[in-house]
């Protein structure tokens, strides 16, 4: 089942979700690893980070398009209003963040006259002119956006676990290749 239903996320939505989760976790690992490396090795690790970042960017755009073309599984009945608001806000924020964070990374690299290559296959155009002050701004923002992804993603994951173990509903199951529990929202 590739498309979503009103009960469950389809195969493609699930694929987008989990692939992007894994890539983002790996991005945090690469960024951390690069920090303490000598220049030559650092260039290589950051180049990988950028290639994966641009992959996430592309997937995020495709994913957003797919979401707009699909039904969205309904919120569980009886879910308190504040949780519903929290869910919509955090999902919206995550969609925005997975697009804006790599975009700022791209600008940051451009501002330092390091063109972004996709795994050595092709090179993206520089978005801005090289400028130290711009670079510092994009660097700081890119870091804060990454921290925001981390914070919201952790909250998002904890909320999913709460739904699964405390509310015992289908919210987590909907995003997994498993059968839904019958008779539950």
């Amino acid at each position: 089942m590739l498309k979503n239903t009103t009960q469950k996320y389809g195969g493609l939505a699930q694929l987008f979700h989990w692939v992007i989760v894994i890539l983002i976790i790996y991005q945090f690992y690469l960024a951390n690893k690069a920090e303490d490396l000598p220049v030559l090795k650092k260039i290589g690790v950051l180049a990988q980070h950028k290639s994966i970042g641009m992959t996430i960017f592309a997937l995020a755009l495709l994913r957003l398009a797919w979401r707009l073309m699909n039904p969205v599984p309904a919120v569980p009945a009886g879910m308190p209003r504040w949780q519903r608001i929290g869910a919509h806000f955090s999902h919206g924020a995550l969609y925005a963040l997975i697009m804006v964070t790599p975009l700022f990374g791209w600008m940051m690299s451009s501002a330092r006259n390091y063109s972004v290559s996709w795994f050595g296959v092709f090179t993206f155009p520089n978005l801005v002119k090289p400028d130290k002050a711009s670079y510092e701004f994009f660097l700081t923002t890119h870091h804060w956006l990454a921290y925001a992804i981390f914070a919201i993603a952790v909250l998002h994951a904890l909320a999913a676990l709460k739904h699964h173990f405390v509310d015992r509903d289908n919210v987590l199951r909907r995003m997994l290749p498993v059968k839904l529990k019958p008779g539950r929202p």
Partner: protein
Amino acid sequence: MSTPTFSTSRSFTVRLIAAASLTCALGLALAATQWLMQPTQSKLSFIGVQAGAEFEGVFKKFTADIKFDPKDLATSRFDVKIDVASVDTQDGERDDTIKSADLFDVKKFPSSRYVADKFTAAGPNKFTATGKLTIRDVTRDVPVEFTFEDKDGGAWLKGTAKIKRVAFGVGQGDWQDTSTVSDDVKIRFALLLKKG
């Protein structure tokens, strides 16, 4: 007529001076034109590849002593001296790395030089210079392809060259590895010349 080889007659002296003057004049006319490079409008850049992406840098300070005449390639000559510390890739950290001991070692080798005195025509306004490039303490033959366009009292000398950096010692220790930073470097220049 049995006259001695050297005559001291006045007419001979006059003819001798005239012949000498004419030869000198021809000699001067035959020497290639001396040009003066206009530094603010001239550019010397290089393009390297790092982690799959090209990056461009320039040398902001260099002199180019250009003697060139498309009709007199035999006496044409290029002598370019580059102030390596003037490198600018629009990133301070990368510039510092380029100047460091493992790459250009600016402290030991503050300048690079290109001297060419052999030129061949390669098409309308197109030429090839055969010369020697010295970077650090290594000198190697490097051909340069260029065009020369003379107009309104000024001339544009534009060209390219390709080098392999490791052969010049630009890459010591870990930097000999060319998988992250390419061995191939393209050089581009555009010099505005005015008659000297």
